[in-house]
Protein backbone atom coordinates (compact mmCIF):
# COMPACT_ATOMS: atom_id res chain seq x y z
CA UNK A 1 0.00 0.00 0.00
CA UNK A 2 2.65 2.41 -1.04
CA UNK A 3 0.27 4.75 -2.79
CA UNK A 4 -0.75 7.28 -0.25
CA UNK A 5 -4.39 8.05 -0.90
CA UNK A 6 -4.97 11.61 -1.85
CA UNK A 7 -7.07 13.07 0.92
CA UNK A 8 -10.28 14.87 0.20
CA UNK A 9 -9.65 18.45 0.96
CA UNK A 10 -13.21 19.59 0.55
CA UNK A 11 -15.68 18.05 2.92
CA UNK A 12 -19.10 17.88 1.28
CA UNK A 13 -21.68 19.50 3.53
CA UNK A 14 -24.23 16.80 2.81
CA UNK A 15 -22.39 14.16 4.77
CA UNK A 16 -23.82 13.41 8.12
CA UNK A 17 -21.69 13.52 11.29
CA UNK A 18 -21.18 10.05 12.76
CA UNK A 19 -19.72 11.60 15.85
CA UNK A 20 -20.00 15.14 17.06
CA UNK A 21 -18.20 16.02 20.24
CA UNK A 22 -18.78 19.61 21.22
CA UNK A 23 -17.08 21.55 24.00
CA UNK A 24 -16.40 18.50 26.10
CA UNK A 25 -14.39 18.74 29.30
CA UNK A 26 -13.31 15.77 31.39
CA UNK A 27 -11.78 15.99 34.81
CA UNK A 28 -10.26 13.50 37.21
CA UNK A 29 -9.84 13.83 40.89
CA UNK A 30 -6.21 13.89 41.80
CA UNK A 31 -5.99 11.49 44.74
CA UNK A 32 -3.00 13.17 46.26
CA UNK A 33 -4.31 16.70 46.37
CA UNK A 34 -8.01 15.92 46.29
CA UNK A 35 -8.52 18.54 43.59
CA UNK A 36 -10.31 18.18 40.30
CA UNK A 37 -7.95 18.28 37.39
CA UNK A 38 -8.97 18.73 33.78
CA UNK A 39 -7.52 16.20 31.40
CA UNK A 40 -9.65 17.36 28.49
CA UNK A 41 -10.73 20.98 28.24
CA UNK A 42 -13.39 22.32 25.92
CA UNK A 43 -12.62 19.91 23.11
CA UNK A 44 -14.74 19.74 19.98
CA UNK A 45 -14.31 17.14 17.31
CA UNK A 46 -16.36 15.84 14.43
CA UNK A 47 -16.17 12.69 12.34
CA UNK A 48 -18.30 12.59 9.18
CA UNK A 49 -19.62 9.57 7.33
CA UNK A 50 -16.92 7.38 5.79
CA UNK A 51 -14.29 9.81 6.95
CA UNK A 52 -10.95 8.97 8.54
CA UNK A 53 -9.94 11.40 11.19
CA UNK A 54 -6.70 11.38 13.14
CA UNK A 55 -6.31 12.52 16.71
CA UNK A 56 -2.66 13.02 17.56
CA UNK A 57 -0.66 14.37 20.45
CA UNK A 58 2.09 13.54 22.90
CA UNK A 59 1.36 10.95 25.55
CA UNK A 60 -0.58 12.61 28.32
CA UNK A 61 -2.19 15.11 26.00
CA UNK A 62 -5.67 13.72 26.65
CA UNK A 63 -6.21 12.04 23.30
CA UNK A 64 -6.97 8.63 24.78
CA UNK A 65 -9.44 10.18 27.20
CA UNK A 66 -11.22 11.86 24.33
CA UNK A 67 -11.32 8.49 22.55
CA UNK A 68 -12.95 7.00 25.64
CA UNK A 69 -15.51 9.81 25.52
CA UNK A 70 -16.28 8.90 21.91
CA UNK A 71 -16.72 5.27 22.98
CA UNK A 72 -19.10 6.22 25.77
CA UNK A 73 -17.05 4.77 28.60
CA UNK A 74 -15.91 8.04 30.09
CA UNK A 75 -18.10 10.40 32.04
CA UNK A 76 -17.72 14.02 31.07
CA UNK A 77 -18.00 17.21 33.08
CA UNK A 78 -19.46 19.55 30.49
CA UNK A 79 -20.29 19.44 26.82
CA UNK A 80 -22.29 17.19 24.56
CA UNK A 81 -21.66 14.08 22.51
CA UNK A 82 -23.88 13.30 19.52
CA UNK A 83 -23.92 10.05 17.61
CA UNK A 84 -25.65 10.57 14.26
CA UNK A 85 -27.36 13.62 15.69
CA UNK A 86 -28.66 11.68 18.66
CA UNK A 87 -27.53 12.68 22.07
CA UNK A 88 -25.39 10.00 23.51
CA UNK A 89 -25.13 11.60 26.85
CA UNK A 90 -24.79 14.94 28.43
CA UNK A 91 -22.70 14.33 31.48
CA UNK A 92 -23.37 10.75 32.54
CA UNK A 93 -21.84 7.52 31.44
CA UNK A 94 -23.87 6.03 28.63
CA UNK A 95 -27.09 4.31 29.57
CA UNK A 96 -29.30 1.87 27.74
CA UNK A 97 -31.73 4.39 26.28
CA UNK A 98 -30.44 5.32 22.83
CA UNK A 99 -30.89 1.89 21.33
CA UNK A 100 -30.95 3.16 17.76
CA UNK A 101 -27.36 4.29 17.71
CA UNK A 102 -26.13 1.65 20.07
CA UNK A 103 -23.46 -0.38 18.38
CA UNK A 104 -22.77 2.37 15.89
CA UNK A 105 -19.47 3.13 17.56
CA UNK A 106 -16.98 0.38 18.28
CA UNK A 107 -13.49 0.48 19.70
CA UNK A 108 -10.09 -1.05 19.03
CA UNK A 109 -7.43 -0.59 21.70
CA UNK A 110 -3.69 -0.39 22.10
CA UNK A 111 -3.35 -3.44 24.33
CA UNK A 112 -4.60 -5.99 21.82
CA UNK A 113 -4.39 -9.18 23.86
CA UNK A 114 -5.63 -7.33 26.94
CA UNK A 115 -8.70 -6.10 25.11
CA UNK A 116 -10.02 -9.66 24.98
CA UNK A 117 -11.34 -11.54 28.00
CA UNK A 118 -8.60 -14.06 28.81
CA UNK A 119 -11.15 -16.66 29.89
CA UNK A 120 -13.45 -16.42 26.93
CA UNK A 121 -12.83 -18.31 23.72
CA UNK A 122 -12.80 -16.11 20.63
CA UNK A 123 -15.92 -17.67 19.08
CA UNK A 124 -17.83 -17.45 22.37
CA UNK A 125 -16.95 -13.76 22.57
CA UNK A 126 -18.29 -13.22 19.08
CA UNK A 127 -21.39 -15.20 20.06
CA UNK A 128 -21.93 -12.91 23.01
CA UNK A 129 -21.86 -9.90 20.69
CA UNK A 130 -24.27 -11.63 18.29
CA UNK A 131 -26.73 -12.25 21.10
CA UNK A 132 -26.42 -8.64 22.19
CA UNK A 133 -26.96 -7.34 18.64
CA UNK A 134 -29.01 -10.03 16.85
CA UNK A 135 -30.07 -7.79 13.95
CA UNK A 136 -26.84 -5.95 13.37
CA UNK A 137 -24.69 -9.05 13.25
CA UNK A 138 -26.74 -11.07 10.76
CA UNK A 139 -24.76 -9.80 7.80
CA UNK A 140 -21.68 -11.95 8.22
CA UNK A 141 -20.76 -15.39 9.48
CA UNK A 142 -17.84 -16.03 11.76
CA UNK A 143 -15.94 -17.72 8.96
CA UNK A 144 -16.42 -14.82 6.58
CA UNK A 145 -15.46 -12.45 9.34
CA UNK A 146 -12.18 -14.24 9.87
CA UNK A 147 -11.59 -14.03 6.16
CA UNK A 148 -12.15 -10.29 6.29
CA UNK A 149 -9.45 -9.87 8.91
CA UNK A 150 -7.20 -12.40 7.15
CA UNK A 151 -6.99 -14.91 9.95
CA UNK A 152 -7.34 -18.71 9.78
CA UNK A 153 -10.70 -19.99 10.98
CA UNK A 154 -9.21 -22.31 13.59
CA UNK A 155 -8.16 -19.28 15.66
CA UNK A 156 -11.84 -19.01 16.60
CA UNK A 157 -11.41 -21.90 18.96
CA UNK A 158 -8.51 -20.36 20.80
CA UNK A 159 -8.25 -18.27 23.93
CA UNK A 160 -6.73 -14.77 23.74
CA UNK A 161 -3.55 -15.92 25.50
CA UNK A 162 -2.87 -18.24 22.60
CA UNK A 163 -2.75 -15.41 20.06
CA UNK A 164 0.10 -13.15 19.02
CA UNK A 165 -0.32 -9.41 19.42
CA UNK A 166 -1.06 -8.95 15.73
CA UNK A 167 -3.59 -11.78 15.67
CA UNK A 168 -5.29 -10.46 18.79
CA UNK A 169 -5.57 -7.01 17.29
CA UNK A 170 -7.15 -8.41 14.15
CA UNK A 171 -9.59 -10.34 16.33
CA UNK A 172 -10.35 -7.06 18.08
CA UNK A 173 -11.04 -5.47 14.71
CA UNK A 174 -13.28 -8.42 13.84
CA UNK A 175 -15.20 -7.96 17.08
CA UNK A 176 -15.71 -4.32 16.18
CA UNK A 177 -16.67 -5.17 12.61
CA UNK A 178 -19.21 -7.88 13.43
CA UNK A 179 -21.80 -5.39 14.71
CA UNK A 180 -21.48 -3.39 11.50
CA UNK A 181 -20.49 -0.15 13.15
CA UNK A 182 -20.57 3.20 11.44
CA UNK A 183 -17.54 4.45 13.29
CA UNK A 184 -14.52 2.65 14.67
CA UNK A 185 -12.51 4.42 17.33
CA UNK A 186 -8.99 3.02 17.20
CA UNK A 187 -6.87 4.05 20.17
CA UNK A 188 -3.24 3.50 19.19
CA UNK A 189 -4.08 0.13 17.67
CA UNK A 190 -0.63 -0.47 16.23
CA UNK A 191 1.75 1.06 18.71
CA UNK A 192 2.18 -2.00 20.92
CA UNK A 193 2.73 -4.35 17.99
CA UNK A 194 5.90 -5.41 16.28
CA UNK A 195 6.66 -4.04 12.88
CA UNK A 196 5.13 -6.69 10.62
CA UNK A 197 1.99 -6.84 12.74
CA UNK A 198 1.77 -3.06 12.58
CA UNK A 199 1.77 -3.24 8.83
CA UNK A 200 -0.98 -5.87 8.80
CA UNK A 201 -3.23 -3.99 11.17
CA UNK A 202 -2.65 -0.73 9.33
CA UNK A 203 -3.55 -2.40 6.08
CA UNK A 204 -6.65 -3.88 7.65
CA UNK A 205 -7.78 -0.47 8.86
CA UNK A 206 -7.16 0.95 5.42
CA UNK A 207 -9.25 -1.86 3.95
CA UNK A 208 -12.09 -1.09 6.38
CA UNK A 209 -12.06 2.52 5.38
CA UNK A 210 -12.08 1.79 1.68
CA UNK A 211 -14.42 -1.21 1.44
CA UNK A 212 -16.77 -1.07 4.41
CA UNK A 213 -18.03 2.50 4.52
CA UNK A 214 -16.85 2.76 8.08
CA UNK A 215 -15.67 6.05 9.47
CA UNK A 216 -12.51 5.96 11.54
CA UNK A 217 -11.28 7.97 14.47
CA UNK A 218 -7.62 7.06 14.62
CA UNK A 219 -5.79 8.02 17.77
CA UNK A 220 -2.07 7.84 17.37
CA UNK A 221 1.24 9.53 17.77
CA UNK A 222 2.59 7.89 14.65
CA UNK A 223 2.36 10.65 12.09
CA UNK A 224 3.70 8.51 9.27
CA UNK A 225 0.83 6.08 9.63
CA UNK A 226 -1.68 8.86 10.20
CA UNK A 227 -0.65 10.42 6.92
CA UNK A 228 -1.32 7.17 5.11
CA UNK A 229 -4.65 6.55 6.67
CA UNK A 230 -6.51 9.75 7.43
CA UNK A 231 -8.25 12.64 5.69
CA UNK A 232 -8.30 15.10 8.52
CA UNK A 233 -6.32 15.60 11.69
CA UNK A 234 -6.82 17.05 15.17
CA UNK A 235 -3.79 17.84 17.30
CA UNK A 236 -4.08 17.81 21.08
CA UNK A 237 -1.87 19.31 23.71
CA UNK A 238 -2.47 19.56 27.44
CA UNK A 239 -6.09 18.50 27.05
CA UNK A 240 -6.95 21.05 24.38
CA UNK A 241 -7.31 20.71 20.67
CA UNK A 242 -4.75 23.15 19.37
CA UNK A 243 -4.97 22.55 15.67
CA UNK A 244 -7.14 20.79 13.13
CA UNK A 245 -7.55 20.61 9.39
CA UNK A 246 -6.97 18.55 6.27
CA UNK A 247 -4.08 16.22 6.78
CA UNK A 248 -1.80 17.53 4.04
CA UNK A 249 -2.36 21.12 5.07
CA UNK A 250 -1.43 20.46 8.66
CA UNK A 251 1.50 18.26 7.77
CA UNK A 252 3.00 20.66 5.28
CA UNK A 253 2.37 23.92 7.08
CA UNK A 254 1.53 23.38 10.73
CA UNK A 255 0.24 26.47 12.50
CA UNK A 256 1.39 25.87 16.04
CA UNK A 257 4.88 25.28 17.38
CA UNK A 258 3.84 22.06 19.12
CA UNK A 259 2.46 20.54 15.95
CA UNK A 260 5.62 21.41 14.11
CA UNK A 261 7.64 19.77 16.81
CA UNK A 262 5.43 16.68 16.69
CA UNK A 263 5.98 16.38 12.97
CA UNK A 264 9.70 17.00 13.17
CA UNK A 265 10.27 14.51 15.91
CA UNK A 266 8.00 11.99 14.28
CA UNK A 267 5.64 12.53 17.16
CA UNK A 268 7.37 9.95 19.23
CA UNK A 269 8.88 10.96 22.47
CA UNK A 270 8.88 9.84 26.01
CA UNK A 271 7.57 12.22 28.57
CA UNK A 272 10.63 14.23 29.50
CA UNK A 273 11.84 14.35 33.06
CA UNK A 274 10.98 10.79 34.01
CA UNK A 275 14.55 9.82 33.34
CA UNK A 276 13.42 6.52 31.94
CA UNK A 277 13.74 5.47 28.39
CA UNK A 278 13.80 2.15 26.68
CA UNK A 279 17.28 1.29 27.87
CA UNK A 280 16.61 2.00 31.46
CA UNK A 281 13.70 -0.40 31.21
CA UNK A 282 15.96 -2.99 29.74
CA UNK A 283 16.07 -3.77 26.08
CA UNK A 284 17.75 -7.13 25.96
CA UNK A 285 16.28 -10.50 26.69
CA UNK A 286 18.75 -10.82 29.54
CA UNK A 287 17.31 -7.78 31.15
CA UNK A 288 13.83 -9.09 30.69
CA UNK A 289 14.29 -12.49 32.22
Amino acid at each position, binding site marked *: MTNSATPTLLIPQTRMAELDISSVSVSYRNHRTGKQQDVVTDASLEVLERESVALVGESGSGKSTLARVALGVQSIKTGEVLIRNQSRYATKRVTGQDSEVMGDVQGVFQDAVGSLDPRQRIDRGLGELRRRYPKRTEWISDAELMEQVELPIDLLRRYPGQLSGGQAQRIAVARALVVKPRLIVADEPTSALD*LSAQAQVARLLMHLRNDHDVALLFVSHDLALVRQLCDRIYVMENGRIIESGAIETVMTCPQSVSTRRLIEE*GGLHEVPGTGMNEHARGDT*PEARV
Partner: protein
Amino acid sequence: MSSNNLLSIQGLCATARDVNGGVIQILRDVNLELEEGDRLGIIGQSGSGKTTLIRAIVGLEHPTIKIESGTIKFRGETMYSDSCDRRAELRGSTLGAIFQSAIRSIYPFRRIGSQLREIVKFHHPELDKAQSLNRIEQLLRGMSLKDTDRILRSYPHQVSGGQLQRVAIALAMLADPDVLMADECTSALDKGTEADVVRLLDRFTNDGRSLLFVTHDLRLAGRVCDRMLVLLRGEVQDSGAAAEILAGACTEYTRSLLEAMPPWKPADGSWPADSVVELADRTRS
Protein backbone atom coordinates in the same frame (compact mmCIF):
# COMPACT_ATOMS: atom_id res chain seq x y z
CA MET B 1 52.22 -13.52 30.59
CA SER B 2 52.33 -10.16 28.99
CA SER B 3 52.75 -7.42 31.56
CA ASN B 4 50.05 -5.12 30.32
CA ASN B 5 47.40 -7.68 29.46
CA LEU B 6 44.65 -7.12 31.99
CA LEU B 7 41.63 -9.13 31.02
CA SER B 8 41.49 -12.00 28.63
CA ILE B 9 38.44 -14.02 27.70
CA GLN B 10 38.63 -17.13 25.57
CA GLY B 11 35.89 -19.13 23.97
CA LEU B 12 33.09 -17.96 26.21
CA CYS B 13 29.77 -19.70 25.48
CA ALA B 14 26.58 -19.12 27.42
CA THR B 15 23.06 -20.47 27.05
CA ALA B 16 19.63 -19.72 28.45
CA ARG B 17 16.35 -21.52 28.38
CA ASP B 18 13.55 -20.02 26.36
CA VAL B 19 9.90 -20.03 27.34
CA ASN B 20 9.29 -23.43 25.81
CA GLY B 21 12.18 -25.00 27.66
CA GLY B 22 14.44 -25.01 24.60
CA VAL B 23 18.04 -23.91 24.81
CA ILE B 24 19.17 -20.66 23.21
CA GLN B 25 22.74 -19.62 22.67
CA ILE B 26 23.34 -16.23 24.26
CA LEU B 27 27.11 -16.08 23.72
CA ARG B 28 28.92 -18.10 21.06
CA ASP B 29 32.67 -18.49 21.42
CA VAL B 30 33.44 -14.92 22.41
CA ASN B 31 37.10 -13.91 22.67
CA LEU B 32 38.21 -10.63 24.14
CA GLU B 33 41.53 -9.08 25.14
CA LEU B 34 41.82 -5.92 27.20
CA GLU B 35 45.09 -4.19 27.94
CA GLU B 36 45.97 -1.49 30.38
CA GLY B 37 44.63 1.86 29.31
CA ASP B 38 42.51 0.19 26.68
CA ARG B 39 39.11 1.54 25.79
CA LEU B 40 37.09 -1.22 24.26
CA GLY B 41 33.60 -0.71 22.92
CA ILE B 42 31.17 -3.62 22.90
CA ILE B 43 28.45 -2.85 20.39
CA GLY B 44 25.25 -4.71 19.84
CA GLN B 45 21.51 -4.34 19.42
CA SER B 46 18.92 -5.74 21.80
CA GLY B 47 19.51 -9.40 22.42
CA SER B 48 23.06 -9.40 21.12
CA GLY B 49 24.37 -10.74 24.42
CA LYS B 50 26.43 -7.70 25.33
CA THR B 51 24.93 -7.38 28.78
CA THR B 52 25.34 -11.09 29.46
CA LEU B 53 28.98 -10.78 28.48
CA ILE B 54 29.89 -8.10 30.99
CA ARG B 55 27.80 -9.63 33.73
CA ALA B 56 29.48 -12.96 33.15
CA ILE B 57 32.92 -11.40 33.58
CA VAL B 58 32.20 -10.57 37.22
CA GLY B 59 30.15 -13.70 37.84
CA LEU B 60 26.81 -11.95 38.12
CA GLU B 61 25.05 -13.41 35.11
CA HIS B 62 21.34 -13.87 35.48
CA PRO B 63 20.43 -17.15 37.20
CA THR B 64 18.65 -18.43 34.10
CA ILE B 65 21.84 -18.07 32.06
CA LYS B 66 24.40 -20.81 32.18
CA ILE B 67 28.01 -20.49 31.11
CA GLU B 68 28.83 -23.59 29.09
CA SER B 69 32.54 -23.15 28.47
CA GLY B 70 35.36 -20.65 28.22
CA THR B 71 38.05 -19.15 30.41
CA ILE B 72 38.40 -15.72 31.95
CA LYS B 73 41.85 -14.55 33.00
CA PHE B 74 42.82 -11.43 34.85
CA ARG B 75 46.47 -10.32 34.80
CA GLY B 76 47.28 -13.80 33.62
CA GLU B 77 45.56 -15.51 36.51
CA THR B 78 42.67 -17.79 35.68
CA MET B 79 39.56 -16.44 37.34
CA TYR B 80 37.11 -18.72 35.61
CA SER B 81 37.40 -22.04 33.83
CA ASP B 82 35.59 -25.36 33.84
CA SER B 83 37.24 -26.18 37.13
CA CYS B 84 37.40 -22.91 39.03
CA ASP B 85 35.37 -19.79 39.63
CA ARG B 86 37.04 -16.91 41.48
CA ARG B 87 35.23 -14.12 39.70
CA ALA B 88 33.79 -12.76 42.94
CA GLU B 89 37.28 -11.54 43.85
CA LEU B 90 37.28 -9.23 40.84
CA ARG B 91 34.26 -7.21 41.90
CA GLY B 92 34.61 -3.71 43.26
CA SER B 93 38.13 -2.31 43.24
CA THR B 94 39.33 -4.47 40.35
CA LEU B 95 36.40 -4.55 37.96
CA GLY B 96 33.82 -1.87 38.54
CA ALA B 97 30.50 -2.17 36.78
CA ILE B 98 27.70 0.19 35.88
CA PHE B 99 24.83 -1.99 34.83
CA GLN B 100 22.19 -1.20 32.32
CA SER B 101 19.45 -0.08 34.67
CA ALA B 102 21.70 2.31 36.53
CA ILE B 103 18.79 4.14 38.05
CA ARG B 104 17.41 1.08 39.74
CA SER B 105 20.85 0.04 40.89
CA ILE B 106 20.78 2.56 43.73
CA TYR B 107 19.38 1.43 47.05
CA PRO B 108 16.10 3.30 47.56
CA PHE B 109 16.03 3.34 51.35
CA ARG B 110 19.15 5.34 52.16
CA ARG B 111 20.33 8.85 51.40
CA ILE B 112 22.55 9.14 48.36
CA GLY B 113 25.38 10.78 50.29
CA SER B 114 25.55 7.97 52.82
CA GLN B 115 25.69 5.37 50.05
CA LEU B 116 28.51 7.17 48.30
CA ARG B 117 30.45 7.59 51.55
CA GLU B 118 29.96 3.92 52.33
CA ILE B 119 31.70 2.98 49.08
CA VAL B 120 34.61 5.31 49.80
CA LYS B 121 34.92 3.91 53.30
CA PHE B 122 34.79 0.37 51.99
CA HIS B 123 37.53 0.79 49.41
CA HIS B 124 39.60 3.53 51.02
CA PRO B 125 39.31 3.10 54.77
CA GLU B 126 42.27 5.46 55.27
CA LEU B 127 40.33 8.57 54.20
CA ASP B 128 38.60 10.65 56.84
CA LYS B 129 35.12 12.04 56.48
CA ALA B 130 36.09 15.43 55.03
CA GLN B 131 38.45 13.87 52.52
CA SER B 132 35.91 11.36 51.32
CA LEU B 133 33.24 14.03 51.01
CA ASN B 134 35.66 16.12 49.03
CA ARG B 135 36.37 13.26 46.67
CA ILE B 136 32.68 12.59 46.16
CA GLU B 137 31.85 16.20 45.41
CA GLN B 138 34.74 16.54 43.02
CA LEU B 139 33.61 13.51 41.09
CA LEU B 140 29.99 14.62 40.94
CA ARG B 141 30.92 18.10 39.78
CA GLY B 142 33.05 16.56 37.06
CA MET B 143 29.79 15.22 35.65
CA SER B 144 28.30 18.71 35.72
CA LEU B 145 26.04 17.75 38.59
CA LYS B 146 24.97 20.98 40.22
CA ASP B 147 23.39 21.28 43.61
CA THR B 148 25.47 18.42 45.00
CA ASP B 149 24.66 19.27 48.61
CA ARG B 150 20.99 18.75 48.04
CA ILE B 151 21.54 15.56 46.08
CA LEU B 152 23.76 14.07 48.77
CA ARG B 153 21.08 14.77 51.36
CA SER B 154 18.29 13.33 49.21
CA TYR B 155 16.83 9.88 48.90
CA PRO B 156 17.05 8.39 45.40
CA HIS B 157 13.36 8.95 44.67
CA GLN B 158 13.78 12.67 45.26
CA VAL B 159 16.21 13.36 42.42
CA SER B 160 15.78 13.11 38.67
CA GLY B 161 16.71 10.17 36.49
CA GLY B 162 19.62 11.92 34.83
CA GLN B 163 21.07 12.86 38.20
CA LEU B 164 20.67 9.31 39.50
CA GLN B 165 22.42 7.92 36.46
CA ARG B 166 25.42 10.05 37.28
CA VAL B 167 25.29 8.99 40.92
CA ALA B 168 25.41 5.38 39.72
CA ILE B 169 28.48 6.15 37.63
CA ALA B 170 30.06 7.79 40.66
CA LEU B 171 29.32 4.74 42.83
CA ALA B 172 31.31 2.57 40.45
CA MET B 173 34.15 5.06 39.96
CA LEU B 174 34.69 5.75 43.66
CA ALA B 175 36.06 2.24 44.10
CA ASP B 176 38.89 3.17 41.69
CA PRO B 177 38.61 -0.01 39.67
CA ASP B 178 41.33 -1.10 37.25
CA VAL B 179 38.66 -1.77 34.68
CA LEU B 180 35.36 0.05 34.48
CA MET B 181 32.53 -1.69 32.69
CA ALA B 182 29.74 0.63 31.66
CA ASP B 183 26.54 -0.77 30.14
CA GLU B 184 24.55 1.94 28.35
CA CYS B 185 25.59 4.37 31.07
CA THR B 186 24.62 7.51 29.18
CA SER B 187 21.22 6.42 27.97
CA ALA B 188 19.19 8.56 30.40
CA LEU B 189 21.27 11.66 29.82
CA ASP B 190 20.85 14.53 27.43
CA LYS B 191 23.53 15.26 24.86
CA GLY B 192 25.33 17.89 26.94
CA THR B 193 25.64 15.71 30.02
CA GLU B 194 26.56 12.76 27.86
CA ALA B 195 29.54 14.76 26.63
CA ASP B 196 30.55 15.51 30.23
CA VAL B 197 30.38 11.83 31.15
CA VAL B 198 32.36 10.88 28.06
CA ARG B 199 35.01 13.42 29.06
CA LEU B 200 35.08 11.99 32.58
CA LEU B 201 35.52 8.45 31.24
CA ASP B 202 38.30 9.76 29.06
CA ARG B 203 40.12 11.25 32.02
CA PHE B 204 39.51 8.06 33.94
CA THR B 205 41.35 5.98 31.37
CA ASN B 206 44.19 8.44 30.99
CA ASP B 207 45.94 7.18 34.12
CA GLY B 208 46.35 3.65 32.83
CA ARG B 209 42.94 2.29 33.69
CA SER B 210 40.76 0.51 31.17
CA LEU B 211 37.21 0.82 30.03
CA LEU B 212 34.68 -1.65 28.67
CA PHE B 213 32.05 0.54 27.10
CA VAL B 214 28.86 -1.30 26.20
CA THR B 215 26.41 0.44 23.94
CA HIS B 216 24.07 0.00 21.02
CA ASP B 217 25.26 3.29 19.59
CA LEU B 218 28.13 2.78 17.20
CA ARG B 219 28.83 6.46 16.84
CA LEU B 220 28.98 7.10 20.57
CA ALA B 221 31.35 4.16 20.90
CA GLY B 222 33.47 5.70 18.16
CA ARG B 223 33.84 8.82 20.25
CA VAL B 224 34.79 6.97 23.44
CA CYS B 225 36.73 3.89 22.36
CA ASP B 226 39.95 2.89 20.63
CA ARG B 227 38.85 -0.61 19.82
CA MET B 228 35.50 -2.21 19.17
CA LEU B 229 33.80 -5.55 19.32
CA VAL B 230 30.51 -5.88 17.46
CA LEU B 231 28.13 -8.59 18.64
CA LEU B 232 25.15 -10.08 16.82
CA ARG B 233 23.15 -12.83 18.50
CA GLY B 234 26.02 -13.59 20.80
CA GLU B 235 28.59 -13.87 18.06
CA VAL B 236 31.47 -11.50 17.45
CA GLN B 237 30.98 -9.95 14.03
CA ASP B 238 33.82 -7.49 14.04
CA SER B 239 36.70 -6.77 16.30
CA GLY B 240 39.41 -4.24 15.75
CA ALA B 241 40.45 -0.65 15.88
CA ALA B 242 37.55 1.72 16.14
CA ALA B 243 38.78 4.01 13.41
CA GLU B 244 39.06 1.16 10.91
CA ILE B 245 35.64 -0.18 11.67
CA LEU B 246 34.07 3.23 11.44
CA ALA B 247 35.88 3.71 8.15
CA GLY B 248 34.08 0.69 6.79
CA ALA B 249 36.50 -2.17 7.27
CA CYS B 250 33.86 -4.47 8.64
CA THR B 251 31.17 -7.04 7.99
CA GLU B 252 27.94 -6.23 6.27
CA TYR B 253 26.02 -6.20 9.55
CA THR B 254 28.27 -3.57 11.08
CA ARG B 255 28.10 -1.56 7.91
CA SER B 256 24.33 -1.63 8.10
CA LEU B 257 24.57 -0.32 11.65
CA LEU B 258 26.86 2.38 10.34
CA GLU B 259 24.39 3.27 7.69
CA ALA B 260 21.92 3.86 10.48
CA MET B 261 19.67 1.10 9.30
CA PRO B 262 19.37 -2.34 10.79
CA PRO B 263 19.17 -5.17 8.27
CA TRP B 264 15.55 -6.07 8.52
CA LYS B 265 12.42 -5.40 6.57
CA PRO B 266 8.74 -5.88 7.33
CA ALA B 267 7.57 -9.38 6.62
CA ASP B 268 5.36 -8.66 3.63
CA GLY B 269 7.12 -5.58 2.34
CA SER B 270 3.89 -3.68 2.25
CA TRP B 271 4.95 -0.98 4.62
CA PRO B 272 5.51 2.40 3.02
CA ALA B 273 9.22 2.78 2.58
CA ASP B 274 9.60 6.15 4.21
CA SER B 275 7.89 5.13 7.42
CA VAL B 276 10.15 2.11 7.73
CA VAL B 277 13.10 4.45 7.73
CA GLU B 278 11.40 6.62 10.24
CA LEU B 279 10.62 3.72 12.55
CA ALA B 280 14.14 2.47 12.24
CA ASP B 281 15.41 5.86 13.26
CA ARG B 282 13.20 5.99 16.25
CA THR B 283 14.08 2.59 17.53
CA ARG B 284 17.64 3.59 17.74
CA SER B 285 17.26 7.09 19.10
